[in-house]
């Protein structure tokens, strides 16, 4: 949710009003971000991003080289090549497309290439399904990418631009995936405010700047790119004598991500008047709440709608939207949750044979606390199953009953599935 607006540097009247769907908003953001190379392959519900961007290319509105690759594997491979060559690179996909990219996701992160990927979240086959869930995004959680989830179309636009800023920050240099719920955001028209092109350019500091690196065979630091003036070797063979050390680089880079995300969120707020919590977590009515629900993506709006309703009825409920899933904000979320009686963790995906993926994280977050809430995992919305307000309300009622009883009998619950 957009919080109370202070006077932004760019007044609202200078932020053009657009009525666009989430995919179009993402394409606009990429267009304004001076992207050098876009390589993408069509897959519902991401396709509109590629189509829209192709229009910008066809009309000469961007300098971008658009590479209409023959698969998502090649899309990710091409943006790795492009980013290594010094370009700002962007791609987008969903579901099986993201799964096909999987191998190269790890490579993009390990080579420290600040690629931005928009994922229009969709369920994985089989059976084939084109609708929203988060199993695709959860599938890439260990790949070394930063993962951000947005709630609405405005945030999709804002976050894609911020993603370039975060990815390219020298403290970070990691790729960023911006997740928007398939159809619920990708195909939903909402009114948004966009910045003038030059303000976006300014925010990003113009074209991509390449960081420097020190290797023994050059006296000075040289640009970390494929550069005929200072040749470097990307992607060497790394055996047990060095691989572990290289993974430490990624571990350390991830540690620096939260502060950068928070800074960028704050800068964006000053510029536009819009911010999303602290950029990592977006809490609502949690201070005195007995029952708190955590959720990712567009369902957060529906949850907030119900929290408002229940608060009006005097029930002590609250919610936290997890905007950043990787790196996971363990301490931050534990601090917000520790005083609740019951926490309902909503997952639009499940690790078969275990729990929902964010539930595992939240369990881990709270383990070290002496006083901690009871936890319930709600698996919901698989394959695009709608989560209407009534269903969310039913979940809260269950949780309130659990809070009253002080005991949770069934930790893993399925919301909205037919028996």
């Amino acid at each position, binding site marked *: 949710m957009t919080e109370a607006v202070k006077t932004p540097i760019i007044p609202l009247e200078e932020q053009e009003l657009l009525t666009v769907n989430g995919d179009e908003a993402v394409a606009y953001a990429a267009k304004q971000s001076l992207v050098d190379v876009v390589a993408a392959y069509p897959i519902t519900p991401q396709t509109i991003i590629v189509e829209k961007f192709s229009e910008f290319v066809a009309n000469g509105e961007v300098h971008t080289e658009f590479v209409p690759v023959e698969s998502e594997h090649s899309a990710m491979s091409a943006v790795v090549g492009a980013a290594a060559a010094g370009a700002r690179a962007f791609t987008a996909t969903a579901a099986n497309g993201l799964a096909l990219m999987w191998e190269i996701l790890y490579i993009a992160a*390990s*080579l*420290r*290439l600040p690629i931005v990927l928009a994922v229009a979240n969709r369920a994985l086959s089989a059976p084939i399904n084109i609708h929203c869930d988060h199993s695709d995004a959860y599938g890439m959680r260990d790949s070394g990418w930063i993962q951000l989830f947005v709630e609405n179309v405005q945030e999709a636009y804002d976050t894609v631009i911020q993603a370039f800023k975060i990815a390219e920050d020298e403290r970070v*240099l990691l790729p960023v995936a911006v997740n928007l719920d398939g159809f619920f955001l990708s195909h939903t028209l909402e009114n948004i405010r966009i910045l003038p092109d030059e303000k976006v350019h300014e925010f990003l500091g113009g074209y991509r700047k390449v*960081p420097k*690196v*020190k*290797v*023994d*065979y050059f*006296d000075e630091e040289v640009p*970390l790119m494929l550069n005929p003036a200072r040749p*470097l*070797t*990307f*992607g*060497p063979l*790394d055996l047990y*004598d*060095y691989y*572990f*050390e*290289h993974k*430490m*680089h990624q571990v*350390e880079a991830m540690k620096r991500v939260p502060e950068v995300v928070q800074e960028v969120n704050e800068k964006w707020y000053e510029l536009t008047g819009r911010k999303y919590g602290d950029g990592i977590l977006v809490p609502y009515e949690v201070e005195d709440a007995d029952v708190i629900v955590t959720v990712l993506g567009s369902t957060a709006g529906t949850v907030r709608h119900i929290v408002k309703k229940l608060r009006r009825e005097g029930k002590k409920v609250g919610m936290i939207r997890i905007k950043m899933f990787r790196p996971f904000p363990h301490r931050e979320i534990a601090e917000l949750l520790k005083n609740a009686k019951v926490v309902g963790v909503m997952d639009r995906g499940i690790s078969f044979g275990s729990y929902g993926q964010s539930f595992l994280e939240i369990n881990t977050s709270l383990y070290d606390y002496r006083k901690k809430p009871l936890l319930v995992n709600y698996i919901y919305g698989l394959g695009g199953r709608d989560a209407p307000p009534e269903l969310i309300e039913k979940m809260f009622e269950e949780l309130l009953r659990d809070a009253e009883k002080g005991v949770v009998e069934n930790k893993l619950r399925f919301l909205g599935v037919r028996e």
Partner: protein
Amino acid sequence: MTSTHKEPRGWKDLPLGAVSYRLSTDYKTGDWRALRPVVDLNKCVKCMLCWIFCPDMAIVWDGEKIVINYDYCKGCGICAHECPVNAITMVPEPTE
């Protein structure tokens, strides 16, 4: 360049992005060799075929003659086999 770092290095001393930081010219493959090519410069007609075909870039033209760089030569024997005038012979590597 000689490095001041201890090898193998800790992660803090490795370059970003896992790019290689040394050239393989620092890594001598000459000790792989069981047979050593020896050039008879009196026979050599300077056709340069050994230089062309050497897989290890171990044959160097110094401006006047070919020189075998035993730091890198792995002793495959291609040079001896391809030499049109049999100026190169493969001899057992001295065991000392």
